[in-house]
């Protein structure tokens, strides 16, 4: 029963809501108590565009409990257009091989398989190839 926890995270998980530092304008995701750039408190909400590029990626063949039915699945570090890097699964890959620098965009998908049973929110952000985006 981890409903309260996932309720706390729902803006981040569903809508990629992070923060913008009111002191130095740094864009922050995930939210933090203190701005990593200037050390002051950062609590203003900021909605990220959900667009970015693959910074690195790995395909996992040996999964932790709760993720076994997804095997193999791909987790990536995504550098968002606004600056921060985020850890997320890739989805809708089709036959296209994943490459560093590949443009991606956020979608909302099921993340864990055993969610219902433990009362958890199991949906959240993943990223898929953004075919129309210009490669920078």
């Amino acid at each position, binding site marked *: 029963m981890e409903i309260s926890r996932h309720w706390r995270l729902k803006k981040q998980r569903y809508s990629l809501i992070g923060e913008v530092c009111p002191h130095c304008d740094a864009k922050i995701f995930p939210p933090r108590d203190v701005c990593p750039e200037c050390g002051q408190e950062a609590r203003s909400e900021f909605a990220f565009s959900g667009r970015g590029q693959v910074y690195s990626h790995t395909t996992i063949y040996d999964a932790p409990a709760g993720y076994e039915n997804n095997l193999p699945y791909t987790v990536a570090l995504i550098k968002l257009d606004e600056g921060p890097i985020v850890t997320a*699964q890739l989805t809708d890959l089709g036959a296209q091989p994943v490459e560093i620098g590949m443009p991606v965009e956020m979608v909302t998908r099921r993340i864990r398989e055993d969610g219902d049973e433990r009362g958890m929110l199991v949906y*959240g952000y993943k990223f898929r190839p953004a075919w129309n985006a210009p490669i920078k």
Partner: protein
Amino acid sequence: MNDAVKNTDIVIAGIGQTPVGEHWQLSLKNLAYLAYKAAVQDSGGLKPDALYVGNMLAPVLSHQAHLGVLLADDFGLAGIEAAAVEAGNAGGAAALRLAYLAVASGCVNIAMALGVEKFTDQVGPNVEAAASVILDSDYEAAMGLTPNAQAALLLRRYLYEYQVPRPAFGAFPILAHNNAAGNPQAMYRNLINAESYAQAGMVCDPLNLFDIAPWADGAAAVIVARRDSLPAALPHPLARISGASLATDRLALHDRPNPLFLRAAQKSVERACRQAGILPQDVDFFELCDSTSTYAALSLEAAGFAAPGQGWRMAQDGQLALDGKLPVCTLGGFKGRGNPGGAAGLYQVVEAVLQLRGEAGKNQLPHPQRALVQSLSGAAATAVAHVLEVIH
């Protein structure tokens, strides 16, 4: 006797370890007791006043916390100071850091740092899920990331940025297995080669089975005391702790300005060496953390033995071997010995002390005077460094 030796030196007076492996028949307590007993015996019978226990996963895997009390009680020492220290895979090394501080404070005479991990109370996916508690739970583990997958993300980026041929990383596990062959406590004493490495099954691309040190059961213990509080005659040379430090980095990979540089590792080595009054280059060997091949290379870079992007080259030409310029993982490292979680850092220290004493058997280095021991947790979110010097 070394000129710099002082009575107030803090030394390692006893060491103990169990073989690393799948100890189905032994409980966490039984394992810890074996290491405890060996260390006490090795020290000529010193009993600790304080026990600091490094452990990573017992509350999750074995439903058992309160390990300080559990073990002090099991050893027949109920009453003494005892507490558990948690710093992921570096918990044992962190326990040694705290034991060092406790003795340095003058409040504790004889401290024991003991690391123990019991993985085989659970199996497979539960162990992987448990190990992910050392990541950022909400933003890393929740996405299905694991500590090994973190290392895979780093290796992929490393190969890309520095244009490294993928097979080059095989040199790390090949070296580790080579060295483990001479260590009776090690889990994997079979030799591997470039061909078997190339054929190894993928675990998390690009890391294969040979790039990842397997989680395994084990316990190791170290007795720490001020030199002048020890009996005059111990049956072995003492190892002085000349430098001890613990540093942290941002927890999640995605929060780091340059994920390929292990800042905590750098800081911990820098601080430990400064305290010891040496440069990293002044050590005779380097017990680095090869929990994955990735960290072997990155650790060499963070410590300053190689420039960023060049750490992998050191494994190509023999300079890390037992007869090389900078021997590493001299008794098999994580990959050859096995990765006993929160006990791993103390295995590294025990192995370094064996070398310094001249008790490393087939793998003995010729008269080493000084060791650098680097323990990492995950992607070096915690890094602990110790400089050890033999006192003749």
